[in-house]
């Protein structure tokens, strides 16, 4: 009977020691599946970003999912009218955690040029936004820059602590004593930048 070695030099190169957070964040940031919330002309630039010249697949985000259950990042591209606002919020709520939001362009960030009775003055009045992209509409490069900023942001998150305590209590019993991090309460509490009239 052959002896099973605890250390096998043949698989040495395939083992990496790292922190759990770093591993989780690395996987998350490189497979950000977008929810393309294309509402106006920004959606055209969003499509251009996905097409071959700019190729959002280089950042692992080529899988535009039209089902919110499979999405990680909602890209709000365009003017959010009040008629559409609660539908956007509903789709956001259907996305599973962890989730992020990019407000693409002037309209999604602040209402843009539409100081109007019909237009929501920034999607951050309804859902928490991680990255705002200026421009009307922004160039595809700007969206890619925003995506890279979001990746940088995900790198720094405390993903393990952000898990629900009941999921991680077996691994780390003392985790129950830790207060939930911001990522855990994302979308529930008022994050910085979320206005008080959030519904």
């Amino acid at each position, binding site marked *: 009977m052959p002896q099973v070695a605890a250390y096998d030099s043949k698989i040495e190169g395939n083992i990496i020691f790292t922190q759990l957070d770093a591993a989780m964040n690395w996987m998350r940031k490189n497979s950000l599946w977008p929810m393309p919330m294309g509402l106006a002309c920004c959606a055209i630039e969003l499509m251009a970003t996905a097409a071959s010249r700019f190729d959002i697949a280089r950042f692992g985000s080529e899988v535009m999912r039209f089902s919110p259950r499979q999405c990680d990042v909602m890209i709000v591209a365009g003017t959010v009218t*009040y*008629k559409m*606002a*609660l539908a956007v919020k509903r789709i956001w709520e259907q996305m599973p955690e962890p989730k992020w939001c990019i407000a693409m362009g*002037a309209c999604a960030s*602040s*209402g843009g*040029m*539409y*100081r*109007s*009775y*019909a*237009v929501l*003055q920034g999607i951050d009045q309804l859902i928490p936004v991680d990255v705002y992209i200026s421009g009307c509409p922004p160039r595809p490069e700007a969206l890619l820059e925003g995506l890279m900023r979001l990746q940088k942001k995900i790198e720094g998150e405390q993903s393990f602590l952000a898990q629900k305590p009941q999921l991680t209590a077996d691994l780390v019993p003392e985790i129950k004593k830790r207060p939930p991090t911001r990522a855990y309460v994302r979308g529930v509490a008022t994050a910085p930048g979320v206005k008080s*009239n959030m*519904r």
Partner: protein
Amino acid sequence: MTGPELLKSLSRLLGSKIQSQIEFRHETTFTIQPADLREVAKFCRDELSFDYLIDISSVDNLGEEPRFEVVYEVYSMTLAIHLRIKLAVSEEVCAVDTVSDIWPTADWHEREIYDMMGIRFNNHPDLRRILMWDGYPFFPLRKDFPLEGLPSEMPDVAFTSAAPMEGGPFVTQPSTATAKDREPRARRPEV
């Protein structure tokens, strides 16, 4: 009969129905009584070959009496002539007969006018709002409705709040300057 001949003889054909007729840059506009609308519309379509209703629009002359105007743009495909029919609607009545059975395209035009200006259309088959949602309490294109909107709430449907006219990233200065100088500018940091 050719198109120009028809337009010249309109006042004879429609007779007393026409209150006033205006000719401006080869466009003919005449005003009628709201009560005569359906009769005039039927006559225009069936006898004068105005088979195409281009648009219906409404005007709010706030402070004047009657307050509203409804404008019908009709066109004849066969004679290639255009005609504009106007009628005045007072705020107390605030209703016009529908022409959606004469020109079916009027259905959504009339719904839009009802939605934006609050003028009702008698006997319309489906007079619901078309752009705003059912339950929105205002008529946004009326002159007394503020540009920034008014707060409203329809639970689970939509809400609105007044948009900030100042404090945003762009500002517009009200003035009589030309459009080039009036357009929104990026706010200067010190302002």
